[in-house]
């Protein structure tokens, strides 16, 4: 980890993960070599040779310094500083740490016992390969951070579900909905970010397959145009996609979403019973047990099978 500089506008320190810095620098050198440009490579190896020749120096440490100096020489830290300058809300932050992302980019806010605030941003090394890309990545992540800092947004770190499988599913949806909220606002005020509307719609289409296809675009558009969302809203939309329909002004009555719980047994189902209305005796039997239930609420194959066994026998 390396301390870089104190921004004059903001009192925040920015620290870079040495692993990330190395990977970025080495990749940029390699790309330049491939294009026949050896200037940076020769400079790098000239300094590196001195480190190899020097006896008993901590090589790893010396190399960290070398990589960071090239990182700065390439101006990558300047790009980050510039984007940080776009977010005055960050003046409340003491420190920012930029790490290498294992899978996808993410941002988080950590508060120490003494109240020190630290932002952790994880970025993939590929994100640094052009300053254009880097500024878009940073802007996207910092928008998340400013939501986290916004009291009205009401960000809370919480467990989404007690089951790990559900946690993963809800998190995936939560992440996408929040990303949509972040990117749509950035784009609407003319800023560049990592994904445009059509890309986010593609993801939405993939992750929210429970929503019947004919409603998907309408639901997405209403999300994209949201002026204000909160953590709690995003979370409840992730947990119950039915609410996505409702907030887009679509009545969810009679729409049976794949993978949502059957109102009778409570188990998520992909097999809603079709043509229930033709089974008057079964409907009546269900109503005896569930007076509030309406046939538009639907029932899963298994529940209908159970009730028809009860009323019709084998």
């Amino acid at each position, binding site marked *: 980890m390396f301390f870089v500089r104190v921004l004059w506008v903001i009192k925040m320190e920015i620290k870079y993960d040495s692993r990330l810095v190395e990977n970025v620098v080495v990749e940029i050198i390699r790309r330049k070599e491939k294009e026949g440009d*050896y200037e940076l490579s020769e400079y790098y190896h000239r300094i590196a040779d001195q480190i190899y020749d020097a006896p008993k120096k901590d090589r*790893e440490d010396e190399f960290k310094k070398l990589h960071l100096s090239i990182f700065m020489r390439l101006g990558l830290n300047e790009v980050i500083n510039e984007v940080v300058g776009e977010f005055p809300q960050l003046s409340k932050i003491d420190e920012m740490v930029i790490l290498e992302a294992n899978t996808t980019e993410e941002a988080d806010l950590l508060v120490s016992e003494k109240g020190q605030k630290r932002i952790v941003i994880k970025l993939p090394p590929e994100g640094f390969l052009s300053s254009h890309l880097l500024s878009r990545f940073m802007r996207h992540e910092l928008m998340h951070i400013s939501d986290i800092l916004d009291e009205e947004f009401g960000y809370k770190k919480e467990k989404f579900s007690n089951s790990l499988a559900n946690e993963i599913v809800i998190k995936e949806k939560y992440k996408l909905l929040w990303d949509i909220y972040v990117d749509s606002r950035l784009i609407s005020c003319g800023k560049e970010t990592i994904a445009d509307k059509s890309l986010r719609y593609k993801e939405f289409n993939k992750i929210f397959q429970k929503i019947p296809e004919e409603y998907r675009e309408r639901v997405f558009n209403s999300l994209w145009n949201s002026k204000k969302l909160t953590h709690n809203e995003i979370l409840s939309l992730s947990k119950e996609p039915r609410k996505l329909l409702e907030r887009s002004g679509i009545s969810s009555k009679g729409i049976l979403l794949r993978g949502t719980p059957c109102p009778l047994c409570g188990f998520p189902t992909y097999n809603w019973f079709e043509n229930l209305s033709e089974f008057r005796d079964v409907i009546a039997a269900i109503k005896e047990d569930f007076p509030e239930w309406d046939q538009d609420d639907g029932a899963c194959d298994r529940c209908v099978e159970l009730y028809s066994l009860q009323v019709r026998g084998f």
Partner: protein
Amino acid sequence: MPEVYNWQLGRKMKFPFQEAYPKKQFAFVFNLNRCIACQTCTMACKSTWTFSKGQEFMWWNNVETKPYGGYPQHWDIKLLKMLDESHKKMGRKPIWKSEMEKGTARPYGVYEGLTIFEALPGESTPMGFTPSEVALGYLPGDKEWRFPNIFEDSPYGPLGKRNAFVHSKGTSLPEHEHWFFYLPRLCNHCTYPACLAACPRKAIYKREEDGIVLIDQKRCRGYKKCVEACPYKKPMFRSATRVSEKCIACYPRIEGKDPLSNGKPMETRCMTACVGKIRIQGLVDIDSNGVWKKDPQNPIYFLVHVEKVALPLYPQFGTLPNGYYIPPRWVPRKYLYQMFGPGVDEAIERYTAPSRDLLGLLQLFRTTQKIIFKFEVQKTGEKIYETTINGKKWAMYNDRVIGYDKDGEIVVDTKVLEPIFERKQKDQFGYYKHYNSI
């Protein structure tokens, strides 16, 4: 660029250096039908050589589940793809001329496609201060090294039938529809090492006495060109020292300098630790033209050149690797051709109904830590089993099998039938006691 003779490809090929061969060559044979992926080999190497700072992600020996596993991830698929693209660009086809010839100079026919040394566009300058490319390759990222056993036990199944077992009635050889197998790998101590060819510092050398390929830790300056060029991805960069490292073939053991060895050459740590008894390693004599000197009593020579049951891994890469594999019998042949070349059918056929010599030799796998330089099967055993394999009669004999060390001294003397020991003593509860129980 000079040309060298590659007998695995049955032709001359481009290589940045002139032909020069060691007197002996470190080589090994792995029987893939038997590996159980216990990773004992992996841990034997790690606990001996790579337990220090900066070596956390380094596994000189690794065992991966094929087809999906790989360390680094997708190393072979990535390179095969690149090679494929080069073929397309250059209007070539990666085909083998099918005629196989007897003899050690062209055992698998002729490979007419491009090797990694030939697949680069245009001529490349072999050496110089600025690192230049001598072989088609790529540098894996951190993420690709991070999960050495990714996709362990993930089988291949027919496309479009996710989670469905298609052979509800069971399956039978020659090919399974759902399959995977374990591939143990280490540096192949190649005859034409791409790592060596790519090093701008000339820090990599191949030893004259045993063909072991080593990286001079003082000369290496972390260019990682070896990591990029080795098609098997066996050199690895160590961040703590900022130099590359790789399997050293446990050379003190090969030299007989290990305290255990009493001056006699010993097999490496990963070989001798093998629980599945899938491994045998030795030294073969090399002729001045690079082909193996005739030595049918040498176990490795016998498996590779006499019985031809053991095949090189991705010979088309062109480095002439010295690790050989008995292919797994249940895996679709097309996959095996891609991985081991055209010798697959013959190898499987001979392994399925082994000759008396082969069956005897297979019994020697992991019976001793000493390198077996010569083996002998005395065909005087009684017939103990008879059956029909692929329509042909086959019988098993309880022959005597003997292994000799470098000086011709007997180091193993065993029989095809493994000896059975009966426990004699019972404990207080009436159970038979182990020999070593108190």
